[in-house]
């Protein structure tokens, strides 16, 4: 089956800021060519590593975020390198650029120059704060983005009884600022591809990561806009204007599960019936609580949470959540990532796939398609490119360099 973007050619000049967007485009079927500096992209130094060997071909970070791409090395700042880059740009549909501000301009490749090279080019510029504005030269990392973007002030642990916090705001780790930016960059990029079908001209898209991250919180912004009401972070649940009941409870086997209120009519009764079936409904069947008016307010919600906690504590994490879900109760285990590949749901949907690493003689479990289409297929391989793996294919077969010319460029450190 075709990939969705089966005829789309992408060039990627990116570190962690843009690699996820490129990975998604590759997954969707585009031919993504990653252009790395000679020696490899700096993201090859990010762990964890295969057998803990810090080595540019053994970064599992790099494997995951560059899955399905092809790779060449090129010093784009050298005159021959700039020339070769121009040739590649002339044939590309999309250029993802997450390099420091002004990198391409210094090479004479402003947006105007890019348009002259390829009027159909879609140029996607990701940068920490945008190319203008008072913070344009600020330095950021994933952590700094999640601080400035508002995620951290929403995430963490509940305050103590007097309302003060004795724990810091928490940034969920594993590069979510770049996930958030990459997802939205993908939306903009494919939107522009569709628009180009109509206009026949390219597009320049600027995506400041700080802005992308700042729009990805939930009710804290409307609460401030409409009510000047701050929201407070609390363990395992939404930041809210007031501290609400717990939804995350420890299980018998030392793990955690989450039980959410069911907003549909009858949701409360279903949950109480389920707790009762486990002999754990406490006093909820007393007449007093049959009256909805006696089930309002924080005293009841806390009491109700205590009863749920007592039930969750009696079972192992994976034990009873299926039974609850069969009844429509939003209940789930808090899993570790590696606990999902064995789940029958994801096996049925082929959510994970085995990816071959021929040079290691091994195949490993990767996360795969994020959805199931019926007319197209999500990419199944190959694994991330080795350093300069496609140099010969691209420079010789595609751009017409001779083997000698390529060897010469290698000797000069240009590829």
């Amino acid at each position: 089956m075709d990939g969705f973007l089966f005829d789309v050619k992408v060039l990627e000049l990116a570190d962690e800021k843009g690699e996820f967007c490129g990975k998604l485009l590759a997954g969707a079927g585009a031919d993504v060519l990653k252009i790395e500096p000679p020696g490899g992209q700096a993201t090859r130094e990010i762990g964890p590593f295969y057998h803990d060997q810090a080595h540019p071909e053994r970064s599992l970070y790099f494997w995951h975020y560059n899955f399905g791409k092809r790779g060449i090395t090129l010093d784009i700042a050298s005159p021959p390198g700039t020339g070769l880059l121009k040739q590649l740009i002339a044939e590309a549909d999309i250029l993802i650029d997450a390099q420091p501000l002004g990198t391409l301009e210094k090479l004479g490749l402003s947006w105007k120059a890019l348009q002259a090279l390829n009027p159909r080019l879609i140029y996607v510029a990701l940068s920490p704060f945008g190319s203008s504005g008072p913070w344009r030269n600020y330095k950021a990392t994933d952590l700094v983005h999640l601080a400035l973007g508002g995620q951290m002030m929403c995430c963490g642990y509940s305050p103590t009884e007097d309302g003060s916090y004795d724990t810091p705001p928490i940034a969920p780790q594993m590069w979510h600022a770049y996930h958030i930016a990459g997802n939205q960059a993908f939306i903009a990029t494919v939107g522009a591809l569709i628009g180009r079908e109509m206009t026949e001209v390219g597009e320049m898209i600027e995506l400041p990561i700080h802005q992308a991250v700042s729009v990805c919180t939930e009710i804290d912004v409307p609460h401030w806009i409409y009510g000047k009401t701050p929201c407070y972070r609390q363990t395992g649940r939404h930041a809210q204007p007031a501290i609400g009941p717990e939804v995350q409870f420890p299980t018998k086997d030392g793990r955690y599960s989450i039980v959410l209120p069911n907003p549909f009519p009858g949701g409360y009764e279903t949950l109480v019936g389920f707790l009762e079936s486990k002999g754990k409904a406490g006093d909820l069947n007393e007449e007093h609580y049959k009256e909805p008016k006696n089930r309002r307010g924080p005293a009841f919600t806390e009491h109700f949470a205590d009863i749920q906690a007592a039930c969750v504590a009696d079972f192992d994490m994976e034990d009873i959540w299926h039974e609850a879900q069969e009844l429509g109760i939003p209940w789930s285990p808090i899993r570790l990532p590696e606990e999902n590949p064995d789940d029958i749901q994801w096996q049925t949907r082929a959510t994970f796939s085995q990816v071959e690493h021929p040079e290691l003689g091994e195949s490993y479990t990767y996360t795969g398609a994020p959805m199931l289409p019926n007319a197209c297929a999500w990419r199944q391989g190959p694994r991330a490119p080795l350093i300069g793996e496609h140099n010969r294919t691209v420079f010789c077969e595609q751009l017409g360099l001779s083997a000698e010319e390529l060897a010469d460029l290698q000797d000069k450190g240009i590829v």
Partner: protein
Amino acid sequence: MKKRRPLEGVRIADLTWLLAGAGGPRLLASLGAEVIRIEWRDRLDFLRYMPPFASKRKHVQHLSSSGGHDSSFRSEQMEERAEKAGAMDLTGLDTGKVQSVNRGGYFNDINAGKYGISLNMKAPQGRELFKKLVAVSDVVVEAFTAETMQKWGLGYDTLKAIKPDIIYMQQPGWGYKGPYVKYASYGPIAQAVSGLTEQSGLPAPQPPAGWGFSYMDWSGAYYCAMTILMALYYKKRTGKGQYLDCSQVEPGIGMTGTAVLDHAVNGRSYRRTGNRSPYTPAAPHGAYPCAGQGAEKDRWIALAVTSEEEWQALVRVMGTPDWAAQERFASLAERIKHQDELDRLVSAWTQAQEPFGLQERLQAAGVPAGVCQTAQDRIERDPQLKHLNWLLPLEHTEIGTWPIKDIPFHFANGQVSQAGPTERAAPCYAEDNEYVYKELLGLSQAEMDACKAEGVI
């Protein structure tokens, strides 16, 4: 040259709700798609009942010319704010108390740029009208429980018979194919099962901190939009529509890939590291307390020092304290080894500092640093977001003009903004019945009146 919307001419029948469902079509509206949100009064989106609410009277907010970041955002007296602004306890939701379903501020943001109609899909006539809409649409997207559309005789085969190149996206929480088809999912559930909750927080024995918002609702929205866009591109190139079975959990799984690989390759389980960098060597790396403001004294700055150069810059901004010259902090490896002590010393310094001034000084010296900003900080103070016009004033027919979060991608040629083709915030309930039923579907006034009288629209 007249600016054009990239998705000009694309029409989407939107049967979603909440954020994970309705957020995807919102993004498509920003790119210019005509999104028609279909609702029915007996089962309205909970977000229409969820605080915060705009004031009852039609009230036009005055925004500063640069996009509005001064304190004139303040709404007028909001008498029920205090009582409504409690924790999100949907079990206690009393929909009868809400005087108008058009005043929800969160709903207003999530549905900006869309058209809105009322349609009773449970009535056979309602389904006939829906089929007429399908005939002139490119995409049908819904987030009902799995068998609902089938039960109504509106499965993919039927939709395809009406419109052969239709793109039909179904997004039950766990996906349609598979044994969990009936399971419920909301953002926190998708976060919990995918592994994202377990990955957030201080190291055990502290429990996971999880997520203080429905990250997977936004991600669900992103993947809804992304998947429809891919399918639209494929249709432009090949003329073929398709059926898309989406789940809210799988995109979350996709964001745990490095940890999945670490287990597959090294047999290692993910262990929470708090705010410390799990894989990029860095120290100090975390949130450090600052001088507090107001009652909560809850002010923090994030520092992420990954190089010798940045460390030296930090030391200079700290005033070159003696402790920083000690052997145990002499290299990145040493600083990581002694980071408990390092964090204590850095915290002792930061807690006397005003956070925003400190951020300026650190950034000027080349240290990656950022205040843990609140919504108030981002709306009223952040000069970069203001420069980027991140909030867009959009008019809502009943509650007036309010700031809406604009999309973060800036197009040079195309006309792209959250105003969408409606150039308006969210629709009031049934606001665009006239346009859709008369102009698009060709009903006469008499036919519309009859539909209304019979409880169909």
